[in-house]
């Protein structure tokens, strides 16, 4: 393990932002810290970067304790949320700042800057000032400045938050490609679950200073282990009930089948989570009678909002793959929904 946080604690005034946080980050992975604001994700990044001092625990890098190492000595570089570009320096000067203040050899530094500007595609903008660049270009300069010194870890603090949706998707892809190309560990902070899913090798979901769940995007998306994670990704259907046996949950909609329910004893209060795209029209092992309330055509998929017939307070969200010839029910129509039990999981209520 290249970077490790061991029971790290951080207090700001009367608030315990991180009670005890542990995490191991592997070499070369794209790890995302995901959570709502106030979950402590930025604090973790600041602790790794050395911009905040831990009040307890230890941070280890390649086996050495770096908890007290000052920020300018750590082999990590940061891409800041507002980019923090030096306004009085050109693109090339910004990118060359690290090698300059680290007293690197000049010819080598120049080569590094040239290569890096090539990687981020800013070679022709090298003599421009930040004020003369677009948002996406500034983002690239910030990235260039961070990667030029070939740090062991790059920390990214919500770097895409200021960009509009289109540019954001473009930059997500670009960041991912750059990371693959330079094979450096990226620790990325975001509150946007779509961003986390598209880019990460692994995601840490954080909530109130605690690690809620750690796993691959697929794990978190399809196999949430807590109520928070189940509710955080997309518009999951969450149906409350009691686990009656390891493969079935008693709900207001009847006995519904689920995949494994590890660590939960029969009789436990649970939430059954099933993705909107896992629900389909038809009869099967699970059968839920519902009435269509709303239909939203969304291009690739069509969204149906339904109300369960046997429990009218329960609303269901269904995503059907769009097909020009597909038969879509009408508003007010009674339908039966089903799903593959393998697509349903339970989490503690």
């Amino acid at each position, binding site marked *: 393990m290249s970077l490790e946080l061991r029971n790290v604690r951080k207090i700001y005034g009367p608030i315990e932002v991180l009670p005890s946080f542990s995490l191991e980050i592997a070499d070369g992975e794209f790890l995302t810290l995901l959570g709502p604001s106030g979950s402590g994700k930025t604090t973790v990044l600041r602790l790794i970067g050395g911009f905040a001092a831990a009040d307890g625990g230890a941070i280890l890098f390649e086996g050495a304790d770096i908890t007290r190492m000052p920020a300018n000595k750590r082999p990590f570089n940061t891409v800041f949320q507002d980019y923090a570009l030096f306004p009085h320096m050109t693109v090339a000067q910004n990118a060359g700042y690290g090698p300059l203040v680290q007293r690197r050899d000049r010819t080598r530094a120049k080569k590094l800057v040239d290569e890096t500007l090539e990687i981020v595609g800013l070679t022709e903008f090298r003599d421009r000032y930040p*004020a003369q660049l677009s948002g996406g270009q500034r983002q690239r300069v910030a990235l260039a400045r961070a990667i030029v*010194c070939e740090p062991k870890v790059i920390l990214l603090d919500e770097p895409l938050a200021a960009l509009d949706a289109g540019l954001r998707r473009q930059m997500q892809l670009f960041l991912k490609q750059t990371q693959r190309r330079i094979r450096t560990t990226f620790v990325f902070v975001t509150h946007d679950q779509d961003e986390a899913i598209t880019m990460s090798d692994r995601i840490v979901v954080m909530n109130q200073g605690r690690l809620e769940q750690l796993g691959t995007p697929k794990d978190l998306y399809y196999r949430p282990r807590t109520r928070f994670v189940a509710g955080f990704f997309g518009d999951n259907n969450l149906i409350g009930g009691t686990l009656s046996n390891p493969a079935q949950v008693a709900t207001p909609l009847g006995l519904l089948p689920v995949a494994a329910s590890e660590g939960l004893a029969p009789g436990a209060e649970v939430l059954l989570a099933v993705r909107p795209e896992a629900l389909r029209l038809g009869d099967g092992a699970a059968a839920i009678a519902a009435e269509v309330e709303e239909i939203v055509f969304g291009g690739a998929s069509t969204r149906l909002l339904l109300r369960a017939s046997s429990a009218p307070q329960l609303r269901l969200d269904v995503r059907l793959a769009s097909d020009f010839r597909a038969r879509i029910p009408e508003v007010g129509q009674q339908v039966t929904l089903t799903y593959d039990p393998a697509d349903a999981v339970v989490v503690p209520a």
Partner: protein
Amino acid sequence: MPRTGPRWLIFAAVAALPALVILVPLGSFLAMSLAHAEKHQIIYDWTLRNYASFLGNWTYLSTFLGTLWLCLEVVLLSLIVGYPIAWYIWRQKSWKRYALLQIAALPLFMSYIVKLYTLRSMLGLNGLVNQALVSLGILEQPSQVFLYNQRAVLITMTVIYLPYVVLPIFLSLERIPRSLLHASTDLGAGGWDTFRRVVLPLSVPGTIAGALFAFVLALGDFITPQMVGGTTGFTIGRVIFSQFGLAFDWPFGAAMAAILLLVALLLIVTAGYAASRRRV
């Protein structure tokens, strides 16, 4: 263009008062500089002879150049003293920095004359400066070098105009986003590199503004040299003042004041241009 008419009217109405109280007196004294005085009578004969006699007289010219040099010294000294003060205040946190800022700005609320008298008593033979230096053993006996000479003018002006230097520098430091300092540290820079390569260049506009304030205020100051300058602390401000007072040659005084104004304007324009060329 039906809508530009009223707009022009509003602009004219807003601009009328400043124009009246600034441009009219300015114009009248520029006109005066082209007149000449004869037996306490001012004759408007539109002549440039005042300017010619100023430029042709080495005594006046050397006093003028000496004053410019003195003002440069005031600027330099107040920057040397003021920049570290501004920087120090900027580095403080929360209430401490605003308390210090208040203290730095406090002299601005005091009467200029009170400050002058205070400084004069401090610089005098039995003043605070001499007492301190003697009791510290640096001087054997009180010295007269601190008062009634050019040096006294320099010290007094520097002290009086210090707030005008500290405040703009502080403001320009304050405008530097903290994230830039983090970024510099993050990239491996130590405190000195961060200061030299990020903080200092980004605070240049405020420093230029502060220097300009000190220079222009010192250039026009004729009371300080009179109060603490003695016989050697002679500045162009005193010369102009004496033309209006004792000599009663208002046109000549006006001509010298016009030259002073020109120098100040030239400097302001140059400094403004220099500051605007920087990308901050």
